């Protein structure tokens, strides 16, 4: 009896939404397996491809989740990712800088970018939306200033890194010709998963992690409880800048090149993943596990549309928007119910 009450308590509001998200993912995936069985939707590789094609998004969504928990937003990350790819390609191809050095440099650039945005938001108290809107413009424009033309990466070290497969030898499937193949992932997925786990632990088990929730819950209170709200916010944006650059690097491992329009609209995918994963846009509530499922749902929809074959790509956009709409409306309804209580 007590357990029933407890589960009911635990299930209220946001946890309930997270449950829906997880169930939705499985339902979508099973539906995909059912509908496109002949085309091989059920193969392990299809599942792993969700991670491979969304490694960058995973990192970006984790960072975005942190920012959203503080009650802020960062819409510059798509552009930062684009800029990172372009900068990487340009340094390696046009300037002959080694792959390792290039990667370190872009990570520093991303962090500094986050630092500037964070300073404006935390210390000058300018709305995050406006600051990162400018950041978005800036990074996109910088990409074009670095090079208007597409640069394809030919750096061997980098390409080797990008092409390095990690095979799951314990799983064996057979292709149409009857050859044994092992499902695989790329290095990028490993990076993304490590980042994800680190952020999960960080948010749950460090003082700083918890203080992010406090700031998002009630900034004024956090201040009166002795938390250095400005510094916390600044650090979150710095971290997010770093993560955006890292996401850019991972993104680049997949795309192997830089062009001006790369990753446009990526920030909205990250926000959507986060929101679908149960993060409240009003701040204070959210966790990266949910965001993971948010990303997976988005990936699954894309896969289904690809497998279906005749649907155009914009259906992904519409489907994501519909989901976003559903979750946002649900959030607001839950909030309203809570208020009434």
């Amino acid at each position: 009896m007590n357990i029933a009450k407890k589960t009911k308590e635990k299930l209220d509001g946001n946890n309930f939404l997270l449950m829906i998200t997880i169930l939705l993912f499985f339902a979508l995936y099973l539906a995909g397996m059912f509908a496109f069985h002949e085309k091989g939707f059920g193969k392990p590789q299809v599942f792993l491809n969700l991670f491979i094609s969304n490694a960058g998004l995973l990192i970006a969504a984790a960072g975005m989740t942190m920012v959203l928990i503080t009650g802020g937003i960062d819409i510059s990350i798509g552009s930062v990712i684009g800029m990172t790819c372009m900068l990487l390609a340009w340094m390696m191809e046009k300037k002959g800088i080694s792959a390792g050095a290039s990667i370190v440099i872009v990570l520093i650039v991303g962090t500094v970018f986050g630092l500037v945005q964070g300073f404006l938001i935390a210390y000058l108290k300018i709305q995050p939306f406006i600051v990162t809107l400018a950041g978005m413009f800036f990074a996109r424009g910088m990409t074009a200033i670095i090079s208007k033309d597409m640069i394809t990466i030919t750096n061997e070290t980098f390409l080797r890194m990008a092409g390095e497969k990690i095979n799951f030898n314990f799983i064996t499937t057979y292709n149409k010709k009857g050859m044994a193949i092992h499902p695989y992932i790329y290095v990028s997925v490993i990076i993304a998963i490590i980042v994800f786990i680190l952020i999960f632990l960080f948010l749950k088990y460090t003082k700083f992690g918890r203080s992010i929730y406090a700031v998002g819950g009630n900034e004024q209170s956090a201040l009166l409880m002795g938390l250095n709200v400005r510094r916390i916010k600044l650090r979150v944006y710095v971290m997010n800048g770093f993560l955006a650059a890292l996401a850019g690097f991972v993104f680049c491992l997949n795309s192997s090149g830089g062009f001006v329009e790369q990753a446009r609209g990526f920030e909205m995918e990250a926000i959507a993943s986060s929101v679908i994963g149960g993060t409240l846009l009003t701040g204070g509530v959210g966790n990266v596990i949910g965001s993971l499922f948010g990303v997976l749902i988005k990936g699954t929809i894309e896969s289904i549309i690809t497998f279906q074959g005749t649907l155009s790509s914009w259906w992904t956009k519409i489907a994501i928007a519909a989901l976003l709409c559903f979750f946002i409306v649900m959030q607001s309804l839950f909030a309203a119910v809570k208020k009434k209580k």
Partner: protein
Amino acid sequence: MEKEKNIVLSMRHIYKNFPGVVALSDVDFTLRSGEIHALMGENGAGKSTLIKVLTGVEEFETGEVRTDGKADLVISRSPQEAQKHGISTVYQEVNLCPNLSVAENIFIGREPMKFGRINWKAMNVKAKELLDSLNIEIDVTRALENYSVAIQQMVAIARAVDISAKVLILDEPTSSLDESEIRKLFGVMKKLKERGTGIVFVTHFLEQVYEVCDRITVLRNGRLVGEYEVDNLPRVQLVAKMMGKEFDDLASIKKSCSNQAENVETEKVIDARGLGHTGTIKPFDLAVHKGEVIGLSGLLGSGRSELAKVIYGADKADAGSVYMKGKKLVLKAPIDAMKVGMAFCPENRKEEGIIADLSVRENMILALQAKRGMFHLINKKEQEELTDRYIDILQVKTASRETPIKQLSGGNQQKVILGRWLMTNPEFLILDEPTRGIDVGTKTEIQKLVVKLASEGMSVMFISSEIEEMLRTVNRMAILRDGRKVGELVEEELSQDNIMNAIAGGGEVE
């Protein structure tokens, strides 16, 4: 005095100026360990400035602050620094994070760590122990938002006490609690007192002061009036000291309109039959006659404001109906009530009353404009004339009619709101706590105005927490308890005792 040993806090000769105003002038304050010390004063007396100075929100100009009877001066530039000196504050609005668990709220920023990570288990255990020691038994792992304001406030106190047990400032903690919650809070306060904590208790409620406090420090106009032992200071004297004037002025308005009472059987302006709103107010009958002031009395949370809001249509009734002069009303939103001649001055002036950035003129004209409709803009000249007239009638102190209302003092803001409604020429005026948080002078003016309006034929519903104020102004009183109307008292039955009995549930009036 200097020889006293157990002094935990002493403030001497504190001065603080705000542009154009002396907020504190040569104020002394002394707090001993194990005492509950009331800080009293009317609005503008300097209570909140003193608290702000003490907690480092504001800096004082000259003066000395010492803690623990030590010789070193203590200067706090921020609430954090004050906390380090052993001074913690719990504010009226709970300053915690609703999204975090109770335990986290107590320990945020100083979580117990183990192997470089937060030790959740230890934190929950510690939080439980701490709350248990204050006789509060709740699940500390649940989010704070699941609990009532009272519990939240006690969690805030637990946090403050755990950080530093020397000086605890409670800034109007009881204003949003109901009676049983107040009991609980007092229990916690007494417990802390036994442990030797010095508590500064800021409140408006006299009864509470006499119930829990040991000493009272009274401020007036930024100056110290004096420090008194509770037992040596009768209520009347306390009030006199706070106000700095005798009671005559207040007493003089004692219902000059008692002749109206005879007309009680005249026309019913408002007649609510079986009106109710699920969750806030159970179905009730209530009639208001022409030229009558009806009071609503009851404890906070008894459904006073809710009753008014249902009649006004701010909360849509889901049972019963309202008749105005015999005609049944359909009230979907406040505008419907306004159109038939109702007006409503809400309790929470800042959040529900004023439109902060708009001018006095716009604030006054808006209700009349809404009544006339969007496409019938009142022309500028008429707006100005109307505003000037009511600024004059109500004696609003403002630099000009175009001054943003947020720059006015609380009392003057209230007058502007009153002007807004008088402009609409209502037949039925609802005033929910119209005198809360405003100075005594304005208070009296408003009370007089109410009586005058009624004598001119307006029906007024007057809601107030202060029984004395109601006794001075109303002809008849409806008593509410736990969301239910439990009875009415008319003229001759109106006395402090009767009302108290009815509110507390004596049963006679039922």
